[in-house]
Every structure is written in structure tokens, then in C-alpha cells.
């Protein structure tokens, strides 16, 4: 049995609990509550019903026939997380954490968001459960993701622009932590990825693991076999962890996480800590980071706001070191090309984040045999990216 994390949240040397003293007891309380409800049949039944009726699960596993033929190698299946309510995998986790918040008697929800997808998914479940909701978002991201800011406000959330540091996702996370320290008694912090202090990396992984469980069952039903390779993009890494986790002990299944190489790893303008960073401590956990020689965290770059983060979930750091998963990186340009290719061949407009996974599938599939199978996690849909892509193509919307 894969034994990670240990009871203090460690994945080998990674993960753990690196937070100010004020948050230690609340995190302990969260761990205990999560431990209790993850084994509680009534909680699990409530979660399953919400995933079915509200999120729209199971999401389809779609065979991309034209794309597979065009690439001329392995057969490609897409796990359609883009068809979930709110348009991405993020909601799998927010539904779970919001139910937990309600069981814990918390009346106020906070979250951080980069592109706004996690913020929207959080505001959505907060609206449904009638919980107060505050979302922290870097000022730079607020400016480039106006539509999602408006969505969150429509849903009744307060969106607070964060003006400190680099004014992006990492600073939004700092600000959410500060809010949590201050309003810890009645507030539940819904972290959107498999990072942060224990138990978040484990808890978010568990809520997202529905992606991998469904994938396994759907592919077995369709083909009677396991896939040869899984591919998912990695920012913080929640969609990848959710897909990978149920396959970790199926050693014959190759796992590929795809980071954002931005303008190229060699330029330094990227968001690929697993490929070009080193281990350090940020946001409550030890993991690979993008930092300078003095341990200051670097600003990142990616065309995809959802991958624009200098850290990564600690379990990915561990899977990299153990060699169970392979982490590669694709550039903005390669991701955009994959975005257009999927749109044209399959009539599916992917998120720019997911386009990174697709770009790697374009490289991998032709090197594989026709009877092999790749599953790509199509973690979100591209509606939110129309503006970015249009601008890149020289269109004005």
C-alpha cells in the first residue's frame, strides 16, 4: 500500500506543516474533522450525490478519434473535466471542502485564486450552501480575468484584490492565510490545489481522485485494459494528482505531469519548479520552488494564469524524486498550437492549462504504437481564455 502522506503530512522529505503557531491548532482541528468525515458514510453519500447532481459526474471519457489519427500513434482519450459545472475540475474539491466546512460549523469561506477558476468554483458552492465568501486575487490577475471577477461577484462573493508582492496567485495565497489567521474561529479556508500545509495536499488529492477512479473504470469497461500513459498539466497539481492517484500502484501506467515552460526553460520566464527549481519551503509545505540564490521566491511566467505559480504540490515533488511520475514542460507556443489543434480536430475548446497536457500528448503519441492508449486530463474548458488567445492571434474582441 502506498503510505503517503505520513500522519504529519510528509511525502518523503516534502509536505509537512510550516505555518505560524496561530494556525497549528486550527489545522489539527481540520485534520481531525477530515479524518472523521472521510470515513463517514453519510458524508460520503452527500458528497456522491452532489458530484452526480450538481457537478454532473461522472464526466465522460471521450475517445478523440480524429486527433489520434492525425498524430498517428497511440489512441488518445480525453477525461472531460471541462464538462463539469463551472467548467473545470476545481469544483470536485470545492464541493467536498464546502460540505466539510458546513459539518464543522463554519459560516465563512475564504479562498485564493489565480485565473479565477477556483474562485468561481468556491463562490459557486458558497452560494449554494448560503455561506459568506471572500476570494483573494492578485491585482494583476484581477485585471486580466475580469469575466471571472464578475462571475464571483454575481455569485455573491467579495473579491479582494491583493496588492502586495508580485500581485499574483502566490500573493493571494499569502493574503488568504493572513485572513485565516485573523478570522480563524468561524472561517474555513478552501485551498484550491494540492499544496499548502497538511492536511490540504492529501485532502484536495482525495477529493480530486474521483477523476482517476472514474477514468480507470470507464477505460476498463470500454477496452478491458489500463492505459499506457496518463498526461495532465501541473501548476499546483490538483488535476494531475486526482488523475494519477488511483493509478500509483499500477506500475505499468506511465504518469506524465506537464509544467509551463512559458517562453522557454532557458529564458527563466516560466513556471516549472519541478523541471528547473529546487526544494524549499513556501505556503506551509516543503516542495520544489522557483527561487533565487538567496531563497527569495521568483515571479513566474505562463500564458496560462492557472499554471502561473512558483511552487507545486509536495506529492508531485515526491513522485518526481521516486521516479514514479515524469515531469516535462511545454512552452506557451506549444500549448497554443495544441489549443488550436484540439479545437479544429475535435470541436472541443480546451483551457490553456489543459492545452499544456495536450501539447505533450502531441509529442508522446507519435512515439507510441497504435494499440497503446493515452488518457489526457482535459481539466477545463477554454471559454475563459478567449481573450488571451484572440489577443495572441491578433484579434480584438
Amino acid at each position: 500500500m502506498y503510505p503517503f502522506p505520513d500522519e504529519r503530512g510528509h511525502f518523503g522529505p516534502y509536505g509537512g506543516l510550516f505555518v505560524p503557531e496561530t494556525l497549528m491548532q486550527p489545522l489539527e482541528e481540520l485534520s481531525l474533522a477530515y479524518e472523521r468525515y472521510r470515513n463517514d458514510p453519510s458524508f460520503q453519500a452527500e458528497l456522491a450525490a452532489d458530484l452526480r447532481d450538481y457537478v454532473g459526474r461522472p464526466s465522460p471519457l471521450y475517445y478523440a478519434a480524429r486527433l489520434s489519427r492525425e498524430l498517428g500513434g497511440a489512441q488518445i482519450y480525453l477525461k472531460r473535466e471541462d464538462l463539469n459545472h463551472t467548467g473545470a475540475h476545481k469544483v470536485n474539491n470545492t464541493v467536498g471542502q464546502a460540505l466539510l466546512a458546513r459539518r464543522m460549523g463554519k459560516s465563512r469561506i475564504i479562498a485564493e485564486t489565480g485565473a479565477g477558476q477556483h474562485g468561481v468554483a468556491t463562490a459557486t458552492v458558497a452560494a449554494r450552501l448560503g455561506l459568506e465568501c471572500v476570494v483573494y486575487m492578485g491585482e494583476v490577475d484581477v485585471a486580466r480575468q475580469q469575466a471571472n471577477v464578475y462571475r464571483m461577484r454575481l455569485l455573491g462573493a467579495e473579491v479582494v484584490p491583493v496588492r502586495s508582492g508580485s500581485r499574483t496567485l502566490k500573493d493571494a495565497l499569502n493574503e488568504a492565510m493572513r485572513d485565516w489567521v485573523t478570522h480563524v474561529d468561524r472561517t474555513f479556508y478552501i485551498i484550491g490545489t494540492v499544496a499548502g500545509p497538511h492536511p490540504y495536499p492529501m485532502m484536495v488529492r482525495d477529493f480530486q481522485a474521483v477523476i482517476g477512479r472514474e477514468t480507470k473504470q470507464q477505460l476498463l469497461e470500454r477496452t478491458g485494459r489500463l492505459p499506457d500513459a496518463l498526461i495532465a498539466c501541473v501548476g499546483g497539481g490538483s488535476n494531475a494528482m486526482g488523475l494519477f492517484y488511483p493509478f500509483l500502484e499500477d506500475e505499468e501506467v506511465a504518469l506524465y505531469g506537464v509544467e509551463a515552460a512559458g517562453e522557454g526553460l532557458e529564458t527563466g520566464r516560466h513556471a516549472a519548479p519541478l523541471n528547473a527549481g529546487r526544494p524549499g519551503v513556501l505556503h506551509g509545505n516543503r516542495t520544489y520552488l522557483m527561487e533565487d540564490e538567496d531563497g527569495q521566491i521568483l515571479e513566474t511566467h505562463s500564458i496560462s494564469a492557472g499554471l502561473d505559480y512558483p511552487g507545486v504540490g509536495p506529492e508531485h515533488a515526491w513522485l518526481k524524486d521516486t521516479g514514479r511520475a515524469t515531469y516535462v514542460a511545454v512552452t506557451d507556443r506549444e500549448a497554443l498550437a495544441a489549443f488550436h489543434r484540439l479545437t479544429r480536430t475535435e470541436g472541443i475548446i480546451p483551457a490553456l492549462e489543459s492545452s499544456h497536457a495536450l501539447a505533450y500528448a502531441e509529442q508522446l503519441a507519435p512515439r507510441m504504437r497504435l494499440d497503446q492508449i493515452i488518457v489526457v486530463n482535459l481539466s477545463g474548458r477554454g471559454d475563459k481564455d478567449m481573450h488571451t488567445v484572440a489577443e495572441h492571434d491578433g484579434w480584438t474582441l
Partner: protein
Amino acid sequence: MSRIAERFAELQAQGRRALIPYLTAGDPRPELTVPLMHALVEAGADLIELGVPFSDPMADGPVIQRATERALAQGVRLGDVLGMVEAFRRSDPQTPVVLMGYLNPIERMGYQTFAERAHAAGADGVLIVDVPPEEAEELVGVLKSQGLDLVYLLAPTSTDERIRRIGALASGFVYYVSVKGVTGAGHLDPSDVAAHLARIKSMIALPVGVGFGIKDAETAAQIARIADAVIVGSAIVSRIESLGETPERIPAEIAAFLKTLRQAIDEPK
């Protein structure tokens, strides 16, 4: 006995409370930090807390965040801060200095290298905001081997079990965070603080300082009645910020402010 323990023993013998001001190293200008430290001592500081700038100060409120950004923008890094301690130490062999900051710059330098350099520079203690005892084992050993005290935070949310555990690991003094919040947070409630301190003191023998939310002479005096040390950070840093246009006035103005605090906490109760 460490310089910190000695200082607290002296104060206790005199029936006085410690006054501990905080500065972010390099704010507003790197060359002002050492003169400012001397001015603080002159004005009555018993111990100085020197903040090490970090790009992601998640436990700090806006005032110290901005100070950190000013320092980082001028290139102040951990190595430079150690240089400032060394320069201060050349003309002040007595006043203890505690480095306060976040783990990552120390990890990057390496625990052993950091501990050796900090000791050589003349630092006395280290307070790392984001390292709870659960994650501190290796670090504690390395710091103690260089004679550095490890100052820990306690919070209103700390359970008895945690207080005991931290008491067993900490040295020098412990730092009680008076409110749930970030540095520079709103109002502290002296009776609530007193109740927590009584609980902490029943479990920990070390001196207990109180910080977060001490803004002026009045709150300093209230805290001095119940704690062994009064720690003042954001109130000083915000004054430094407001004098940003006339940095030559900073040492005198900050010293004058600190004197009002010194007076308030020394007044007979």
C-alpha cells in the same frame, strides 16, 4: 548563559520589564539599520528584533509587508542582514539581537552555514515564524550547537499540550502573539492576554514577551504589568515609513517614540 538569558536575569533582578523593538533590516535604507539599532539601545531597548526580509511574509500585516518590500527592492538579503548584526556588534557587545524571519532563506543558505555565520556575526537568537516544533528538530540541534537561542511563538490558539512542547524546546524567551491575526493587528484585550499568560506561565519557566497590537505608551504599560517583555514592531515600522522623505530624522524620532514606551513600562505600578 546566553546573552538573552543574562539580559532577562538582570532585568528580573531589577524588577524591570524588557522592551523589545523590531526593525525590518534594510528599511528604509540599508545604511540606516545599524545607526537605528544603536539609537534604539540608547533610547532604552533591552533587546533588538531584526526582521530578515522575505518575498512572501505570510504572517505579517501591511506595514511590515511594505517595509519588507522596501528592503528587498534595495537588495537586502539574509547575508546582508548578518553583516548588519556584525557591524552593530562591533560597538555594542551587550544588547542581544534576535533575527526574525521565515524559513526559506535559511534553508537556502543551509542550516549549518546560517548558524555558524549568525553566531560569528554576534546574533543571539532566531525566531522563525513558519517553523513549528513539529518541523524544527534538525534546525534546533544546529542552532543550539552554535549557542543560538530558539525563540518560539505562542498564540491564543495554542493548546496546553503545545505550550508544554514549545516550552521544552524554546530558549531565551517565548513570544506570545496577543491576538489572532498578523503583525500590526487591531486591538489587544489586556484581560484576555493576562488570562493566557497565567496559563502559559504555569507551564513554562522562560520569560514571556508579548507582541502584536502594542501601539503606544498606554498599551505598552498595560502589557508591562503582566508580561516579562513588551515587543513593539509595526508601531515603529509605520513611523519609519511616514518619515521616508526625511530619513535623516528617523533615528531621533524613533528614539523619542521608544523613550515614551520605556517610560510607560518603567512607571511604578
